[in-house]
């Protein structure tokens, strides 16, 4: 893997043909995958520097991550899932913030439901709400829409665009789907064989 790029606020698509190679940058930013050489810096704050060495543990990096397999906590309700990252706030504040996040994604009604009773689209919205409620400095999305039908995809893409306007944070979005890339991307990074081969705006 040999990537070097700057990410600005807005949605940056990591687009590639192959399998999981594109996910690596996400994992490295989050701190899930740690390599020997590299430098990761967000908003001027260094999260990883192999030369110093600096390596912030995952929990200190304040990144929002939506995994490909959603990974909602199966033993918690939707509300409990969304408030999980807010344990440092008071209960009242936590509930308020979570309530707003649920509203943002139009899922207030699902607060007391268990993940297994939700549809794919609903689960995805919960995952997004959960990742964003902690006000992360960067949002990482790993093929979040791959298992959904066209209509749900469009609906969530609309939500994402809305969120993007509201919050000014970098969003890294991995996908193999051209349509998604075009619908969302403000910047595009084309990956091939572990290298960035092209950069720019999608046309």
């Amino acid at each position: 893997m040999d990537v070097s790029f700057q990410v600005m606020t807005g949605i940056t698509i990591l687009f590639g043909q192959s399998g999981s190679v594109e996910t690596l940058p996400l994992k490295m930013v989050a701190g899930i995958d740690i390599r020997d050489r590299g430098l990761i810096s967000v908003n001027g704050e260094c999260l990883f520097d192999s030369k110093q060495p600096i390596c912030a543990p995952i929990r200190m990096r304040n990144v929002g991550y939506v995994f490909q397999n959603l990974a909602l906590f199966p033993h918690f309700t939707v509300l409990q899932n969304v408030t999980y990252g807010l344990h440092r706030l008071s209960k009242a504040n936590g509930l308020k913030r979570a309530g707003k996040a649920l509203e943002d994604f139009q899922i207030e009604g699902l607060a007391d439901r268990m993940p297994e009773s939700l549809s794919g689209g609903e689960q995805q919205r919960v995952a997004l709400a959960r990742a964003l409620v902690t006000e992360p400095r960067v949002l990482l999305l790993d093929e979040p829409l791959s298992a959904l039908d066209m209509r749900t995809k469009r609906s969530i893409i609309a939500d994402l665009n809305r969120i993007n306007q509201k919050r000014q944070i970098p969003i890294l979005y991995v996908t193999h789907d051209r349509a998604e890339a075009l619908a969302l991307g403000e910047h595009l990074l084309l990956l091939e064989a572990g290298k960035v081969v092209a950069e720019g705006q999608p046309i």
Partner: protein
Amino acid sequence: MSSVDWFPIQLSFQVAFIASGIALLMGIFLAWVLARLKFLGKEWIDAAITLPLVLPPTVLGYYLLVVLGQRSPLGKLFERLFGFQLTFTPLAAIIAATIHALPLTVKSVRAAFEEVDPILENVARTLGATELRLFLTITLPLSRRAILAATVLAFARALGDFGVTIMIAGNIPGKTQTASVAIYDAVQAGRDNEALWLVVIISILSVIILYTTNKLGKPRGI
């Protein structure tokens, strides 16, 4: 029924509760260490913990008798610290029971921890959870079923211990004579009726406890 001495039954259940409780707590801790930490010699530790299951009880009992007895450094230290001798007391019976229950809890719980999806754990970390919070809120609750099963196994094993118990706790009626030892004693003495009563009572109480514990573990709605 008046001829039944309730002491061995009482003692056995108390020993089994305490021993399985200790085995559960230690088992959860050791299972976490073995499942989550990386270090050399891990599998040796696992083997050492499992050893009591494999050693014949008389062998294990012999080692413990020598290592914990009055003549040993450990035994002497214990006596100096606590004022009484460790062997031939109910505490020794608890140790005997725990040492057999522990491998059962460690193995079951370790397997359960290793089954918890690492993705879920990473999610928790990205949401700011420390390893402890992750353990208490994610790993442990998701391993609930296995932990319950492990507890039941541990309790059953603790209740039934004989060989090691009789070696290091001795067969002292009214003090350290657990139910399994009492049954053996009654059979040896030709008191078959007493033996039969003890067997029946222990069986009924055990079935009730196991049934209740299993019920507690059933998911809602079943």
